């Protein structure tokens, strides 16, 4: 089955990339963007068809590798 994992910086953590993008959008004349924060998305294909099992595998993957839980939080979405 397919799943999507979103990994984003915790809100108190500085996001230098987001800051640089905000500045660039302003100077490119894209108005009305008040804040940008950048994160990562992982499109994952799993062998299992079982949702609970998939969720468990992805949680394990996030804790071990995909997210740096000191500064990032993650969200798992099963796509089917």
């Amino acid at each position, binding site marked *: 089955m397919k799943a999507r994992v979103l990994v984003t910086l915790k809100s108190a953590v500085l996001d*230098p*990339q987001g800051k*640089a*993008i905000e500045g*660039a959008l302003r*100077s*490119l004349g894209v108005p009305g963007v008040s804040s940008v924060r*950048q994160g990562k998305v992982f499109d994952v294909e799993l062998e299992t068809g079982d949702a609970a099992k998939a969720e468990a595998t992805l949680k394990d993957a996030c804790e071990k590798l995909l997210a740096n839980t000191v500064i990032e939080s993650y969200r798992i979405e099963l796509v089917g």
Partner: protein
Amino acid sequence: MKAAVLVFPGSNREGDVARALELVSGVKPAMVWHADTALPAGTDLVVLPGGFSYGDYLRCGAIAARAAIMEAVRAHAARGGLVLGICNGFQILCESGLLPGVLVRNARLRFICREALLKVERNDTPFTRRYARGAIVRFPVAHGEGNYTADATTLKKLEDEGRVLFRYVMPDGHRDDAQVLNGAANSIAGIVSEKLNVLGLMPHPENHVDPQVGPTDGRALFESLVGVLEKA
């Protein structure tokens, strides 16, 4: 020769390339700020230096490619003016559409600083006149995202038109795409535009020009440019 070196926030090898240019031509290049809208009058050569413009944030070279000065660079290139993008400069040229393809993260995902062996594929360009055709030269690389990628059609076109100017090779002179240090397609280290006036390359010829600090294989690239421009 009148050279202009662009400076973006986060550029950091602008000084190295300016020194190399001065070393071979005796003339200090003009340093041009990214927010300017025009190149100094009479500019022959525009150099986009290495570095981490805008911190390499978003995608390397992406934000710099949209800087004000790039309009002037586009016009200069369209007139047939010479443009040299090194490392981050190459990334910017790709992001700005002046060269095809894109540079993505090294296949092994690590930054890599080491000497690389390159084959000079042809010497009938303004950048390589002082090299022998097929010469093997040593330039250092220092990049995290030098993995050249393009779709099959683009790659074929580049090869058919002979626009791969520098290629990573093994010590015996043969290319080995499976072992290339950063994963670049067809072991591509540098490509030129259709009119041969725009060169983007990942390695740093400007760091191999001075015998006090290392080999000098990069010198001939700058000497080629000086030679071309003095003749003109």
